[in-house]
Structure formats: structure tokens, C-alpha cells
């Protein structure tokens, strides 16, 4: 299997490496279905969840993943990141290094923080980017790809990519690390990516992005007939910065509601990384529909993160020994 040093960006993954990780995640998922959901693989390894930003969901997902692999887990919650606000990223990293962390899962409000940590020389352990500012969130992209693959191929998922699968990502693309990582990984896996958003919430120059851009959600649903629609969380402070006029207008034009559910194919996935703003980007009817994969995504998140930690931290050990 291809061994990674760090997972900082979805772009770090070749097609083979990505499929390999998804396949390991399938194995991990089967572990998660057992009565005793635990493997001895990372016994004696220490994983630090270094969270400079609150995210209970992502943290407990990584925590559970590490614990199921028998790693020792430390949660380090450090609010306020910059030099002016207290201890610097450098000092925190060097502290963890002194304590002997084998893997550091970092969530930070600054884009590039995971990259900086991995390339600074401050720390030798493997770095997993659990979300850096408005840049990337690669394990989210992996769990989304895993979820799509499972829904489309079921038990026959192993070894498959997402060639020709049409995925629409809808909402605040500009500020979304979920969108950036998904765009990269979906392209790597051969999917066709569509971005749907108000022009204010798209990059001013997205010419470097391999995706089709739409402003009209209904039009996209009619013409593209996507296999999966990924709704992004909208942060309400964006409204005050004039990205859109009101919640009502946003929900009407770019929210996923019962009417749009009717435009979705029966087998199409309706995805959301959570936490959802019900009634804003997604209505209750849509969120609770059979198309919705929200809870599957949560469950799959643990399997995918187990696969990532396994790949980064287990050394030469083969997945066949699991």
C-alpha cells in the first residue's frame, strides 16, 4: 500500500492512493459492524487532536477512529491561535513534539496551518489536516467519496473510483474547505463536478478549477441530473458581509427544499457535511428524506479516519493482518 507521511490536502492523493484509502475504509467499516469494534493496530501510538477551532463532530470522529485502532488519544483544545492571542502554533507544536506525538490531527482557523505545521520542522509526527481555515478538509472529501461509492456500488465498492459520477456542490463555495477538498478528490476519482452558488460565494477567479459553474440550482438539477448533491453549510455572518441579502432569499434560491427533492433522481444522494442549518440551506423534508446521507456520512467518517490514521501511523503493517 502507498504510505503517506501527512494528509494535508486532497491533492496529496493520487487516484490509486485514494482508492486504496477508500478500500481500507471498507475494511474498517466492517470492523465497525463487529460487536467488539476495536483493532490493536496502533497500540502504543499517540494521536493528538489539536483543535484551535471548536468542532465537536470532527474531533469526536477522529477520537473514535484513533481509539478503535487502540491508539492513545489526547485532545488538545487551544483556542486563540495567533501570536497576539497567546501561545503560538510553533510553541504548541514543539510542546507536542517533546511529548512524543506520533500523529497530530489539526483543526485551525488559518488556511495553510496544517501545511505550515508539516513543513516547519517544529514536529516530526504525521500531520492530518482536519480543516484549515477556508482551504481544505481532506478527510471530509474522503468520507464523502466513500459515501457516494457505497450508495452507488454497495458491497461491490472495493477497488472502484467515481468515473463519470456527476456531483453538484451547492452553497458557500468561496469559504468552504469541504468544497475545495471535494473538488480535488472528485476530480482525481474521475467524477464530474458542478458548483452551484450565488456569484458572491464563488471565487472571483475560478478559472483554475476543473468544474462547471452554475448560478441556477433548478436549472442545474434539470440539465445535469446529478448523482449526488452536496449542500454546504451557510454561515450567517456572511449575510452581514453582503454576500447575500437575507436568509429567506438564500433558502428560496439556493436552499434544498421539497420541490427540489422532486427534481432529484430516486437514487441520487443528498449530502451535507453537518451541522445543518435546517430551513436555510436544507429543509427538514430534504434532510430527512431517503436521499439524505447525512447520518451515513457521520458513520463513514469514522471508518475513513481509521483508514487515514492506519495508513499514516501503522508503518509497514499490512491491512491483511487486520
Amino acid at each position, binding site marked *: 500500500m502507498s504510505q503517506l507521511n501527512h494528509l494535508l490536502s486532497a491533492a496529496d492523493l493520487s487516484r490509486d492512493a485514494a482508492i486504496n484509502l477508500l478500500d481500507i475504509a471498507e475494511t474498517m467499516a466492517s470492523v465497525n459492524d463487529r460487536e467488539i469494534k476495536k483493532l490493536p493496530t496502533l497500540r502504543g501510538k499517540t494521536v493528538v487532536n489539536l483543535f484551535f477551532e471548536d468542532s465537536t463532530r470532527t474531533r469526536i470522529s477522529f477520537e473514535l477512529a484513533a481509539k478503535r485502532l487502540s491508539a492513545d488519544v489526547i485532545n488538545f483544545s487551544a483556542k486563540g491561535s495567533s501570536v497576539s492571542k497567546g501561545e503560538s502554533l510553533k510553541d504548541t507544536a514543539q510542546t507536542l513534539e517533546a511529548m512524543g506525538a506520533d500523529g497530530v490531527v489539526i483543526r485551525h482557523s488559518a488556511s495553510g496551518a496544517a501545511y505550515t505545521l508539516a*513543513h516547519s520542522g517544529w514536529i516530526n509526527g504525521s500531520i492530518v489536516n482536519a480543516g484549515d481555515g477556508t482551504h481544505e478538509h481532506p478527510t471530509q472529501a474522503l468520507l464523502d467519496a466513500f459515501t457516494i461509492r457505497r450508495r452507488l456500488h454497495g458491497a461491490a465498492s472495493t477497488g472502484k473510483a467515481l468515473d463519470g459520477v456527476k456531483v453538484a456542490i451547492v452553497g458557500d463555495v468561496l469559504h468552504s474547505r469541504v468544497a475545495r477538498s471535494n473538488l480535488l478528490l472528485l476530480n482525481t476519482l474521475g467524477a464530474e463536478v458542478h458548483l452551484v452558488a450565488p456569484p458572491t460565494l464563488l471565487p472571483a477567479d475560478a478559472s483554475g478549477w476543473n468544474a462547471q459553474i452554475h448560478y441556477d440550482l433548478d436549472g442545474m438539477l434539470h440539465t445535469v441530473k446529478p448523482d449526488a448533491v452536496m449542500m454546504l453549510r451557510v454561515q450567517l455572518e456572511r449575510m452581514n458581509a453582503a454576500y447575500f441579502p437575507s436568509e429567506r432569499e438564500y433558502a428560496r434560491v439556493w436552499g434544498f427544499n421539497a420541490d427540489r427533492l422532486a427534481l432529484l433522481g430516486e437514487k441520487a444522494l443528498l449530502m451535507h457535511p453537518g451541522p445543518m442549518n435546517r430551513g436555510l440551506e436544507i429543509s427538514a423534508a430534504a434532510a430527512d428524506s431517503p436521499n439524505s446521507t447525512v447520518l451515513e456520512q457521520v458513520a463513514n467518517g469514522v471508518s475513513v479516519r481509521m483508514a487515514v490514521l492506519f495508513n499514516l501511523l501503522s508503518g509497514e503493517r499490512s491491512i491483511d493482518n487486520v
Partner: protein
Amino acid sequence: MSNYLLKNVSLVGQAPTDVLISGEHIFAVGSDAAKQGASAEVIDCTGLVAVPGLVDLHTHLREPGFEASETVLTGTRSAAAGGFTAVHAMANTSPVADTAGVVEQVWSLGLAAGFADVAPVGAVTVGLEGKQLAELAAMADSRAQVRVFSDDGKCVSDPLLMRRALEYVKAFDGVVAQHAQEPRLTEGAQMNEGVVSAELGLAGWPAVAEESIIARDVLLAGHVGSRLHVCHLSTAGSVEIVRWAKARGINVTAEVTPHHLLLTDELARSYDAVYKVNPPLRTQADVFALREALIDGTIDIIATDHAPHPDESKDCEWSAAAFGMLGLEIAASVAFDVLIDSGASHWQRYAEVLSHNPAQIGRLSQQGQPLVAGSIANIALIDPTKRRDAVSTESKSSNNPYLGLTLGGEVVHTIYRGYFTKRDGSVAAVGRDHTAKAGN
């Protein structure tokens, strides 16, 4: 009184000749020099090109207030290492240089250091806050004789205040040097808005935020008939606006930094904050437009925007890092590569953009003088044959984005008012003693 005979020196790229320096002045040039300089110390300048001592219109010396980054002494030593004989010290110190007292303090620190003329820049508004005009006339009338006024680091974004500042400085032949940055369009901005910022997820600093202010300011300068200087112009669009304004006869001058002539936003992909600067590094197309404008005269000068920061302000995540990079020890080499080594221009233009023009804009009559008998002996001597590692050794800070690059046009000697502040590649231990008659 020390006398030096510079032997076989090319004056601004011309055929080799001799230059006799006596005390603070150039005493003779050509065959006269050798004849009258029999007792002078001979400096073999074979292969070297002499240009008038370089003048920087945009330097952050950080003193008073931020001495951990730089002091007037270390900053002017860095200037001497880079061939400069005069620097304009920006006003964003602590306290801000917005009173006669502070500008006189900076000016006298420069005099005491003795490595270059230090011309303080006065703040346009009190505390750089953009609300109330600072006492510009008091600074102009002080011993520092301030002629350049700037809120650099911040933009005078209020159009009425900018108009008044432009009008007011006419009384003492001053100039307003604008840091063109529309504040609302750049809230939280981290790097150039474009393809790279979209990928990196860093908040964009759009070109239009610079261009819209420049467009407004040239119109204001034209309307009130005053002098406007545009700091660190960084986009192709800004070049077009300045070109248009000059064609209309508006009294506008513009500067470009060495880093905007050489580096692009692609470097941000490393998330290495040494490349974080304001205005940000732009695209290759912008770099080409800036170079062309520098050569064709649309851009008048190269100014360093030398902005030292301590390691802790750069050794961190990108968004927490300070804006700014070093430049004093690199500018001469970047200019050499862009103008001379490229074959695109000539030494005369080099001397204009690094010495004559900035001295003229800053109204420093004792700087940027032609290399003829009677001029003050401010001279940079450059080796056009050797390439060197782009190191910066004299600044107190090390935020040098050129590290790892090799550049041409090394400054071998710097002569400041007849005194070698740099000789054979080494900066002098002590500065020129202005109280003595002259010389080393």
C-alpha cells in the same frame, strides 16, 4: 580631509575614467582627476560602474517604537550595504511620526548613525487614523524639512481628507505618497485575489482595490493641481491609470518595489509567510507590466518598502503573520537584473529610477546629483560581472524573500558624502562623523 582617486571607473555605464573625491565633494573627473589626485588614496575601480548614491523613497526604519525589528542605525547600515546614501523613513513608528518632534528625532538619529541621509516621512493624518490632518507645515518647517507625507501601511481613503492633504502640501512643495488600498475591498485580505488565492483558500486582495484609489487620487491631484506619489504600485491596471494620468499632464509619480518586479503570488503556495506583503505579490502578467512601465517611464522609481519584522511575526501560520519583506540590500541587484542584465534598458535609466528621480520627488537637493565635479560625493559602485547569493546581513531582521536566489549587480563600495560606508563588500564599522570636517 580624505582624498580618494577612483581609477578606471565607468560613470553610469560610460567608458572608464578617473574620479577624484576630496572631502565631501567630487573634485574632478577625467584627466584632471589623476593630475590633481597625486596624493589621494587610489581605489582601483576597474570593471565597476558608478552611479549616484541610491535614494530610497520608502523605508521602514521602525525606530522609535519597534526597535526589535530595526533601528535607524541597523536600517541605514543595511541601506549602505545596498548602495543607498539616503532613505526616507516611513511614519508608522510608535509614536507615529505625525509631529515635528518625532520627525526631528528620527532625523537626528540618522545624523548620529552617519550611514545615510535620513529624510523622515511625515504622517498625513494624526496617528495614521485617517481622521484629522497632522501638522504638516510644522513637520515641513522642522529641522527634518519633511517634504514627503504618507500614512503608508494605511490608505488615506477618505476622499475629502485626501483632497485637503493634496491641497495643503502645495504650500511647502510637499507631496502626498499614497498607499493605495481601498479598505472595504480588502478586509481580512491575505494575498492577491486570483487563481492562487482561490485554491489556497486565502482571502483575496483584489487589484481593483488598488486601482480604484489610484484612479480617484490622480483625478483629485489633477483637480487641485498638486503633486501625488503612488507608493508600491503592483498591478498592470494601476500602470494603465498612471500612464493615462501622465498623458493628461497630471503631476503624478509612481514607485515599484523590487519584490513586485521579481516575485509572484505563486510563492504563496508554500504558505511561507516570508512572501506575505502588502500590497501582495501579484501575477506574472503584472510583473511584466511593471517592468515595462519602469523602462518606459510610466513608473518613475524603484523604492524598497524595506519592512523588517522579527522572526516571531513570520514564523507562524500565514494569516497570523505580519505583512512586509526586506529590500534595502537587494534592490540594486534586482534593478540590475531587470534593467541591465536583461538588456531591456541601460545604466542611465538605472540611475534615474534609483537615485535622480527619488531624490527629486523627495526634494533632496544634495542627493541624486550627477557624477561631475562639484557634486556631493554620493556614489554607489557596482560590479556588473559577478552574481551573488541574495543575502541580507545588516538588517536586524531576516524576513528576506530572496534567500536562495542568485542576483547580479553587487554593490562593492558605497560612498556617502565622501565617506566609505561600504568598502570592498563590507559595511564600515562606524558611520560618517558629521561633526568632523570630512572623510574617513
